[in-house]
């Protein structure tokens, strides 16, 4: 058995098995539990990197569960794929890379941040990763729903992790109810599509798509549910609650979970419906994007809770991605020449958003860890005692606000220019919001780090610093060499978005 052939299954299986092993090992020893979790996640990371490399080099990878051969998508007696198929193209690989990278850094951070009930924490942590990876790897619509629910349940339990503060339970309850309503809409539309085509495989549905009325109803349900889960304004209200109340690194790891929903949104629009997509959908995505940018940034300005403020900024960053992807989708449907640039900007900004906002969340978690205080009004002068953290916050601030030469600027300039081609107003709003974003983060910097020493505290422990420094290094690298990142990571994802025919053909075989 060649292990390389089974990478897609292993990437999901290893964290899944370790997740249920963790509470058992926790009974024996805490150190052993930490070691096992770390080794499992590091192994997943390495295997995922191998898988991503394989996809970028050799194109779409197929893995069929339960078949005699892992590449036999259509059984010999049948005309359509009926087994569970994992299908990994450039877009999936890109998302998998984001998920495993952020989870690994979040885990290292959590080792010193999470003190009590660690066994359960790491179980949920790994399950959340399994959910994200499953959503991104699967080629099956129902499987997507199952992994969406796995992610939501694990994430909700993690948000309520500090259950001694009542507001965490409130945020988790809102999150889980909103998520399951969205997921039920998704399930209903899967039922509609199944009733129409007798198919669950995404590639097969894409091939059979006829854009009847039932397809349109399913499109609206899928689209609005995934937009809800991606945190698009005006359906973003659960997002600041959930991100703001989650413990430490979980706020950061929640960003890839929303990104996984965004992936599902793009998969539905670009692959399943592709050219028969209704013409108003790009316009709706653009409106969502503009609303998210504007509401996110203006609401962030008036927040007093450090994590809640960053969460609203995260809503605005989601808005930038949606804006670029909406323009890209519009160009995709009308075959405009700016399509590639817009999609490139959107996907690059997706990665940058996870890194930048992630770093800011880690710093905020560090501040809360060191001082036990979340309110910006009570903090002050932390730069006296937390020098490294303040410098790291400045890096995150510059990147998230899009100051050159950070990565946020590189992706935002692509977004501004491509969006300008559709309408100058879009890029004017985007640039103005970017300026306000700087003001938003300066508010945190001024209130928390500068000024006289108001709060006594110590620097955060080394594992937390290590994962923050790793993120900051990635941010600076992405900022200084954006062309390399775009060529090697982003372009495969953009090509996968544009080339839905290859996705269909990989499953349905020749002659499509």
């Amino acid at each position: 058995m060649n292990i390389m052939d089974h990478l897609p299954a292993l990437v999901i299986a290893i964290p899944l098995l370790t997740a249920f092993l963790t509470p058992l090992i926790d009974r024996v020893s805490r150190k052993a539990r930490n070691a096992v979790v770390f080794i499992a996640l590091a192994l997943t990371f390495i295997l995922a990197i191998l898988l991503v490399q394989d996809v970028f080099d050799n194109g779409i990878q197929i893995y069929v569960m339960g078949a005699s051969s892992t590449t036999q998508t259509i059984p010999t007696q049948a005309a359509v794929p009926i087994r569970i198929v994992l299908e990994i193209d450039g877009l999936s690989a890109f998302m998998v890379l984001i998920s495993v990278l952020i989870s690994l850094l979040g885990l290292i951070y959590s080792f010193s941040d999470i003190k009590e009930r660690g066994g359960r924490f790491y179980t949920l942590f790994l399950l959340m990763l399994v959910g994200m990876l499953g959503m991104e790897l699967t080629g099956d619509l129902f499987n997507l729903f199952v992994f969406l629910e796995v992610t939501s349940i694990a994430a909700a339990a993690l948000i309520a992790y500090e259950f001694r503060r009542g507001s965490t339970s409130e945020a988790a309850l809102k999150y889980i109810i909103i998520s399951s309503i969205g997921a039920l809409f998704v399930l209903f539309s899967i039922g509609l599509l199944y009733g129409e085509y007798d198919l669950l495989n995404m590639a097969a549905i894409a091939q059979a798509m006829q854009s009847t009325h039932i397809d349109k109803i399913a499109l609206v349900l899928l689209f609005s549910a995934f937009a809800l889960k991606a945190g698009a304004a005006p359906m973003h209200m659960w997002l600041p609650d959930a991100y703001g109340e989650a413990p430490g690194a979980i706020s950061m790891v929640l960003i890839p979970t929303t990104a996984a929903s965004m992936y599902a949104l793009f998969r539905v629009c670009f692959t399943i419906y592709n050219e028969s997509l209704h013409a108003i959908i790009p316009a709706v995505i653009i409106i969502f994007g503009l609303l998210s940018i504007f509401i996110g940034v203006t609401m962030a300005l008036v927040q007093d809770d450090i994590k809640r403020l960053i969460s609203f900024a995260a809503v605005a960053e989601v808005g930038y991605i949606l804006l670029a992807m909406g323009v890209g989708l519009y160009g995709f449907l009308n075959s405009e020449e700016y399509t590639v640039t817009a999609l490139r900007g959107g996907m690059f900004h997706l990665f940058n958003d996870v890194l930048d906002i992630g770093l800011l969340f880690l710093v905020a978690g560090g501040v809360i860890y060191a001082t036990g205080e979340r309110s910006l009004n009570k903090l002050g002068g932390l730069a006296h005692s937390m020098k490294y953290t303040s410098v790291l916050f400045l890096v995150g601030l510059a990147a998230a606000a899009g100051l050159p030469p950070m990565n946020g600027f590189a992706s935002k300039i692509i977004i501004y220019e491509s969006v300008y081609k559709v309408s100058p107003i879009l890029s004017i709003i985007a640039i103005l919001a970017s300026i306000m974003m700087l003001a938003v983060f300066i508010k945190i910097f001024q209130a928390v780090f500068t000024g006289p020493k108001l709060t006594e505290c110590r620097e955060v422990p080394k594992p937390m610093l290590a994962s923050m420094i790793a993120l900051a290094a990635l941010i600076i690298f992405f900022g200084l060499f954006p062309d390399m990142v775009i060529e090697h990571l982003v372009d495969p994802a953009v090509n996968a978005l544009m080339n839905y025919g290859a996705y269909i053909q990989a499953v349905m075989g020749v002659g499509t």
Partner: protein
Amino acid sequence: MILMMLKTIGGFWDPLILVLAAIVVAIIAYIIRAAGRRNHKTGEQAKPFFSGVAEPSKEAMHVRASNLYWGFTEALKGYYTSMKKMHSGMLNDYIGWFVGIAALIFVVLFVMEVL
């Protein structure tokens, strides 16, 4: 070309050129600073003038976060009141927004179909 560049629609973006420029500017700034007067007095001269009243302690003067953008929020009071009404924090409203948006997309989509 030694400097790599990212081609965009309108031109290019090269962070390395910017970093070089920043270094040059920093050197110029340092030269100007080094040319400053050495006999600058600290002490009485450097103290802020507060109408003759003694300066309050630095801790008391730190501008707190919620006061920082007071003018901005005051100017946009109407907008922020409506925003606060929108972010009511009630679970029913969250679901209502979702159902409302889904219904709106439905209506627009099928109205466009008919027209």
